[in-house]
């Protein structure tokens, strides 16, 4: 697939997450630590999913079995991370900077943890494929699509963003005891993973449209959970000359 495809697809899949990291996370050491810790939790969930898949020998070729249990493990570890964060909150509050609301702080950490989950999940999805992509050849010989790499990259991007959104919704839902949102996260994760099973039948366009629709829906819910409204959206896009200076008095 050559170097050009390698870079093009890396930019496509990891562009937004890297932008998010660089602009919102990199400047704060606590956020970096939370992100790495959450990535580690995702890794452990992957380990358990692999062990389960490995143990159940007869079902190794049945994708859906491994897939469903992997989703459950990931959500379980998201829960564990939530518990960990709440327990550590007191200590974290002492070391964070004072210029953010506590609520915002909670949501920011939820966002950071979601992004950590997403980045590690994306890395495992795509890095293996990208490594082969740098060689001189391309997929095609056995009838596969020649857009395999691009489609993989797009799917990976979708999942990274979805994990980020799910993190925000999930933590906020557990804080405020809104059960339907918790169920939504688990259900939509299952839904998206099962949609990708359609890739076995070369229905690439269908899968991509499906997962991106779920992404948009999840994005809307996240926006609302994070405190946005239609009005705030409108106001954000309006050009405002810097007449009023916001002074934070907290």
């Amino acid at each position, binding site marked *: 697939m050559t170097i050009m495809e390698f870079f*093009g697809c890396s*930019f496509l899949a990891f562009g937004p997450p890297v932008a998010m990291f660089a602009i919102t996370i990199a400047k704060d050491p606590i956020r970096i630590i939370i992100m790495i810790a959450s990535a580690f939790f995702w890794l452990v969930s992957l380990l358990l999913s692999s062990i389960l898949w490995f143990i159940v020998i007869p079902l190794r070729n049945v994708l859906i079995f491994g897939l469903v249990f992997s989703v459950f493990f990931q959500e379980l570890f998201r829960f564990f991370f939530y518990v960990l964060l709440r327990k550590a909150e007191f200590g974290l509050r002492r070391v964070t900077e004072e210029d953010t609301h506590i609520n*915002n702080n909670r949501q920011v950490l939820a966002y950071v943890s979601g992004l950590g989950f997403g980045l590690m999940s994306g890395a495992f999805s795509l890095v293996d494929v990208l490594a082969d992509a740098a060689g001189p*050849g*391309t997929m095609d010989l056995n009838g596969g699509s*020649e857009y395999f790499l691009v489609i993989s990259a797009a799917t990976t991007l979708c999942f990274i963003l979805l994990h980020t959104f799910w993190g925000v919704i999930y933590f906020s839902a557990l804080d*405020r005891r809104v059960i339907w949102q918790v169920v939504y996260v688990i259900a939509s994760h299952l839904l998206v993973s099962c949609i990708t099973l359609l890739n076995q039948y070369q229905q690439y366009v269908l899968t991509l449209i499906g997962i991106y629709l779920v992404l948009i829906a999840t994005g809307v819910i996240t926006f609302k959970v994070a405190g946005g409204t239609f009005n*705030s959206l409108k106001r954000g896009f309006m050009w405002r000359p810097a007449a009023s200076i916001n002074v934070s008095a907290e």
Partner: protein
Amino acid sequence: MTTRSLCAMEMQAFMIAAKDSETCFRRSNMINNLNPMRFCDPMGDRNVWATLFARDASEQEKSVIVLAARLDTTSMFEGEAPGAVSTVAGLVTALATYSLLSEMKTELSPARSGGNVMLMLFNGEAYDYIGSSRLVYDMSNGMFPPKWSNVPSLNISKIRMMIELNQLSQINQSTGAVAPMYLHKTLDNPDIAKFIQSMKSQQADLNLNLLDSTATSIPPVSLQSFVKADANFPGVAITDYDQSFTNKFYHSVLDDVKLLKFKYSNGTAPPSDSIQAYLANLSTALGRSIYELIAQKPYTGTTKVEPTQMNELLHCYLNSLNCSLFHSATNDDFTLPEYPPPLYVGVSNSLNAVTGLSGRLIALLTGAETNSSKEECKLNESDVTHQYLWMRGKMGAGVCVQTTMNYSTASSPAFDIEGYNWKSGQYSTWTESVWKGFEVRIFLKPSYGHEAFVISFGSVFLVFSFIVVFFIYKQSDIFFEPNISNGGC
């Protein structure tokens, strides 16, 4: 963007080497290297030689006539070095002449008074005279033949004359006339004059056209190595050119049967204007002149080299190794392939098939058949001047042949001399790089349009995502109002 994938092929043919022969040879032989690696191998093979009569201590000065030709050629293509005009023509003429002399042995033996004929086939001449320079070096150190054989060593002073057969062909033939052959001599002396005169006297009978070369020095032939060692070395080279080559495809893959105009004549006798007849006549003239030189009287018999024998010899070296002569000269241990022998000399630790086959051919044509069985057919400690070879023989039933034929190393002294000055150019220093395996793989690769689309889309998307994230971040206060129901601090 929707153009299809392209077929691509990637070949790896890596050859290990280093700067030049001196450097790569030194690096290959570094003993204190934890990771020994061969960079290059010296080129070479073996020379083939034989003597008409077994040599002994009674050999006099200036008694040996050397009949020489080269065994090798080169070309730019691996495994394709036919060398029809540059090598094979001279080689088969030398073989046929030597075979004729062997048939004349009964008449020659009482009259020879110590004289002898040595057939010498030099290998590696295409690469700065590897074989002939090595022979001269060995002779000057008393190492030819090797000391362990109780044969007295040959040195240059014992050579009465060297007759070399170089490029021979009918390329220069003008219609109706016989193609000319040129005689190049190293110096004027009575022996050489006698030889040339003897050759020319046979021109009419044998339909030859022999001319003296008008060049002022000898051409690039193996004689050069001998003249380098001894400026008064007596030698004659017989070629088809005078002052410059007539062979436009010298050392080329196109120096093949078509250039030599050789057509194998299966069953019938070759036509009288064919190259077989031409070279047969030359061999006959040569054999008789050498006879006259040794016996000091002209040859009065009727034995000659027949064009049919030339036909078979040329067929073996130019068309197929699986020919009747090589078949008779070998035994069941050999499998003879159908293609002609490539005559590239190669590296000295890998011996060429054509060298061994030529040696066996000499044994077949000129050796003495013995009654030994196959198990007894090996080197006899009491008779180290002869080799014993088991072969199918002319009858095909298997016979043990006794022959004076032997081999000598044809690898440049430069690699054996301690502290040799590589810049001196005294000996050949040709080496060949070591191959590191050869791989080819075929695969599909994306079209250029596809690649360009992906990289540009990806880059644009990257920049776009940075802009969007930055925008959201900057406006985050406005986008994400603090949620009152979340509670305070």
